[in-house]
């Protein structure tokens, strides 16, 4: 196998239900060893996209290749190279954590060590507990453990930390970082921007089924979106100005001698940039619909 070929290659991916386009001309690539985050509001098409790539849904149009295979036609050999953590799971779970992992490990040709996997998701103390008796967050960790037990080349994580407390999320991030260090390629969907910033090498923002931006995490939205904002008040009037030279602006404000009220200099966070992107897109499509 050519190790320099992208592990995921998607071009003009399209999925329609009747006249509704859930995914509309989405294109991206994931290189081997890379973690790619798909960001977007609920219903944007993230899960539909990831489920097409996992082989769960058929696409309406476009091309897709996952580990060199068309995901609509992937066989057992292909599935053995993937790890899938679905968005939700509600199994009855009448087996213990260890029984479940040992059993699933048997499905794969080169599974990870069960003890190591249990330790990596922090469930050593719960390994003898029936899965149905675990808390929601603990069950989610079992899901993640099942996703990595087969030692996958490519791991799909569909909103993996929804419902986690901050500590569990931190631990989960460490786990993903260790998988990245092992060379696992990862496709992650999330609506936590800090998660994408922590884990992602690159990210794509999806809204209304369209990829509205794609790039390295620190380049999303373009340079313009990162221009600092200076805010202040004069009497009851609020002012806001974007400038590459906030210091100079503040100095000019001070020229009058009076301290400006409510002075702030803000560098847009990833979250600000993301929200701006999504808002811009919503506005643009409204204008388009109005026409």
């Amino acid at each position, binding site marked *: 196998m050519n190790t320099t070929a992208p592990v995921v290659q998607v071009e003009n991916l399209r999925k329609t239900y009747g006249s509704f386009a859930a995914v509309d001309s989405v294109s991206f690539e994931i290189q081997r060893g890379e973690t790619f985050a798909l960001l977007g509001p609920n219903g944007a098409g993230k899960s539909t996209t990831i489920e097409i790539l996992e082989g769960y849904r058929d696409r309406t149009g476009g091309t897709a290749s996952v580990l060199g295979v068309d995901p609509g036609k992937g066989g057992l050999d292909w599935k053995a190279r993937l790890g899938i953590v679905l968005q939700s799971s509600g199994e009855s779970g009448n087996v213990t954590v260890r029984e479940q992992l040992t059993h699933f490990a048997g499905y794969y040709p080169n599974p990870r060590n069960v003890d190591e996997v249990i330790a990596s998701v922090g469930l050593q103390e719960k390994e003898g507990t029936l899965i149905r008796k675990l808390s929601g967050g603990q069950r989610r960790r079992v899901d993640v453990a099942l996703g990595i037990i087969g030692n996958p080349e490519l791991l799909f994580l569909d909103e993996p930390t929804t419902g986690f407390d901050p500590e569990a999320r931190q631990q989960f991030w460490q786990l993903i970082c260790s998988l990245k260090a092992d*060379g696992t390629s990862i496709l992650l969907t999330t609506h936590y921007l800090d998660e994408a910033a922590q884990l992602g090498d690159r990210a794509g923002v999806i809204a209304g089924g369209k990829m509205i931006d794609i790039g390295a995490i620190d380049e999303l939205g373009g340079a313009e979106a990162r221009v600092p904002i200076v805010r202040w008040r004069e009497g009851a009037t609020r002012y806001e100005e974007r400038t590459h030279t906030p210091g100079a602006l503040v100095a000019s404000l001070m020229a009058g001698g009076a301290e400006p009220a409510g002075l702030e200099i803000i560098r847009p966070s990833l979250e600000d940039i993301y929200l701006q992107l999504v808002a811009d897109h919503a506005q643009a499509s409204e204008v388009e619909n109005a026409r």
Partner: protein
Amino acid sequence: MSTTSSAPVTATGRTSRSSLGASLGRNLRLGASRIKYEVRAYFRQGDSVFFTFLFPVVMLTIFSLAFSEQNFGSEEEPLTAAAFYLPGMIAAGLLLSGLQNMAIDIAMEKSDGTLKRFAGTPLPVMSYFIGKIGQVFVTGVLQATLVILVASVAFGVELPNEPSKWLTFAWVFVLGVTTSAVLGIALSALPRTGKSATAVVIPIALILQFISGVYLGFSLLPTWLQNVASAFPLKWMAQGMREVFLPASFEVLEQSESWNLPGVAIATGLWLVIGLIVTRITFRWIRKDS
């Protein structure tokens, strides 16, 4: 515990892989692993243990106690309620462990995401089915053993001692339990949600039991109802079991006044084929666009 789980993690192991789908040995090995997993989970599920596993024993006990004063045979050849109901309860066990249990179990697995998870793993569908049918077989054998033991030990039912009778028992049991399991898998396509599965499946099983000579003596039913029941497999399984456990003098009470074992084999076998075809057509890990 499986030893494969401790295989070392190697980067080089990723490049050399044989074709997983084509290996019958792998399918069987995973099937065996599934049987163990399924049986273990089954006995941890309190309601399934009661409503499918213990149900025939409970019903046998109730009938035996309720009708303990009645003679179900003739003046010359008396028969206790326990002896009269034993074959029907064994047949009911086949239906409950197979059809009812499988149809509800798989419908639930469909709706709770279990099958979706399997769809994303290299588990062959064949191994999954081996696991299901194996679970039905294991629990069915234990269930029949328990019913026969309770009938014999607690209610003094005399068991047949001719090997030929037990041979009949063996093939009717194996054919019956397999057919019942496969029909259960086929029927699991019917409920739209896991929650509605019991509401859809239990009435079907219950009606079959009432018209097939499980709770009501088959010879007491009107001819038209006997004919309706003859279209379904449970009547034939119960008839086969009656041949094994009832005195020869009861044969004249059957339809066509014969145990008709070839009929038992043909009717049950036909339903097995129907079940396999329906399963082949309808079973999917997931509906791709639901």
